[in-house]
């Protein structure tokens, strides 16, 4: 249930403005890959092109190739909706559906597509997803309460449970812990560590310690100045990026000399 992603020659535009230029990278299955870089360098934009979520933003478009186990996400006849059901996403701020209970939130991806699911299957899916998100023990007694009643960290784990309930191959996370307190952040980081047993995880983070703690490989993005496009500067095993970077820019960034 886990697939690799290969990106080639990818350019992202907002209207006429080139936001991310010529990215090329391979993301391994069953691994955690972190994107780091200063604000506005295009790492979140690039993350969104991996499941075509950038198309939700008016004017945004991508050119190039993104291969999911060899199949091009941008090939002719590919339905972005299907892409998103195979590559899930977790956002910066937890966003459970306010009109739904915890249980319905987990089942949202299934129910909103009005797939038929028996009650037993649904119960099993809710339990396995919440277990997978390390949330089951905290909410098993109040599955019918609104999801918005949980704490911020619990809400974010609920969103992760909601994403894995769709059984995706890849999970993208856009600064999933930046709105959370340290203890909740730790819970999310532990969870990411477990998730990589079954999924390909790609995470954008501002926090370099977080990237070094949880990721197998790290990609550093940078931008030369306003109006310039963001670029992938260096991509490699996390230990190498942080201890022995090949590029001067990377070293400046990870050692805190700028940004």
């Amino acid at each position, binding site marked *: 249930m886990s697939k690799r992603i290969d990106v080639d020659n990818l350019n992202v535009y907002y209207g006429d403005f080139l936001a991310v230029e010529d990215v090329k990278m391979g993301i391994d299955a069953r691994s955690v890959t972190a994107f780091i870089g200063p604000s506005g360098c295009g790492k979140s934009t690039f993350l969104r092109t991996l499941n075509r979520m950038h198309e939700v933003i008016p004017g945004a478009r991508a050119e190039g190739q993104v291969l999911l186990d060899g199949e091009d996400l941008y090939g002719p006849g590919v339905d972005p909706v299907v892409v998103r059901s195979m590559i899930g996403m977790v956002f910066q701020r937890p966003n459970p559906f306010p009109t739904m209970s915890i249980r319905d939130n987990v089942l949202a991806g299934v129910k909103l597509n*009005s797939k038929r*699911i028996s009650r037993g299957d649904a119960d099993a899916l809710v339990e396995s997803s919440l277990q997978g998100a390390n949330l089951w023990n905290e909410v098993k007694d109040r599955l019918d309460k609104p999801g918005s009643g949980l704490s911020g960290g619990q809400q974010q784990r609920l969103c992760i449970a909601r994403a894995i309930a769709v059984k995706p191959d890849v999970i993208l996370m856009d600064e999933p812990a930046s709105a959370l307190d340290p203890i909740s952040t730790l819970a999310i980081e532990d969870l990411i560590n477990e998730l990589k047993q079954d999924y390909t995880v790609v995470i954008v983070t501002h926090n370099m310690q977080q990237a070094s703690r949880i990721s197998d490989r790290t990609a550093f993005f940078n931008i030369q100045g306003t109006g310039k496009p963001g670029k992938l500067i260096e991509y490699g095993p996390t230990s190498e990026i942080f201890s022995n970077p090949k590029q001067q820019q990377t070293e400046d960034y990870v050692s805190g000399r700028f940004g």
Partner: protein
Amino acid sequence: MSTTVTTKEPASGIRRAAAGGQAGDSVFSALSLGAGVLILAVLAAVAVFLSLQALPTFRAPAEEISGGAGFFSYIWPLVIGTVVAALIALVIATPLGILVALYISHYAPARIAKPVGYIIDLLAAIPSVVYGAWGTTVLASSLVPFYTWAAEHLGFIPIFSGPASQTGKTMFTAGIVLAIMVLPIITAMSREIFIQTPKLHEEAALALGATRWEMIRMTVLPFARPGIISSVMLALGRALGETMAVALVLSSGPLMASLIQSGNQTIAAEIALNFPEAYGLRLSELIAAGLILFLITLVVNMIARAIIARYKEFSGAN
């Protein structure tokens, strides 16, 4: 709703048969687009059908039009009556409306301000026919002493020239009823904007030692000026088109300067009073009158919208 049931087999590839619901997407977007276009069509239809039905009036020889002197001399007293009624309403309602809005936003204690807001909304919710009924039975007769007094002492001013109406069913009464009807519009919109005045500005003024009125004059009113203007324009549009208050309250007649005698008429009331019995050319005349009213309110509303649009950026910036 659940027209699409997809297979439960695990996702095999991104090119698998487009999961059901793609058709739903295009149907739904076409439906919503269709509804939007329908609204444009309706508005176009309003203009087209009114023009078509009004056409005979503009073609008919002048002596066949009511009054026997052509459509223009038929319509202009009505236009003036309409404008005068609306102006009376605004002269009364604008200062009152703004002051009441200030009461709610800056003077009343918080636990009174909210119910007062409701009361003003209540004022807006009462159907116009009830205001008309109240105006003709209660207000008109109670204004007679004032009209008599005004005719005696202020008769040298044309608008108060006597003899005063003994029923009180005059243009002035109609204007007052209209004022009561548009007051909630001005109050509600002004209040919204008064509340949005940046607290920082208000506190800056107070910290300089301003009294409450000086603070309002220096910060709240300049900030809210465009909002006040557009609320008054919207109220004007409403007053121009309001029918029942005038149809029930005014004892209509030919155009005259005095506002405290029977006489004068507005377009909307003219239509309401005559349409049920009209046929043939008369019908077309009334529709033509309606077209004129439509154009007048259209211009007023567009000016109001333009003012709102122009200042929107400023108010949003805070």
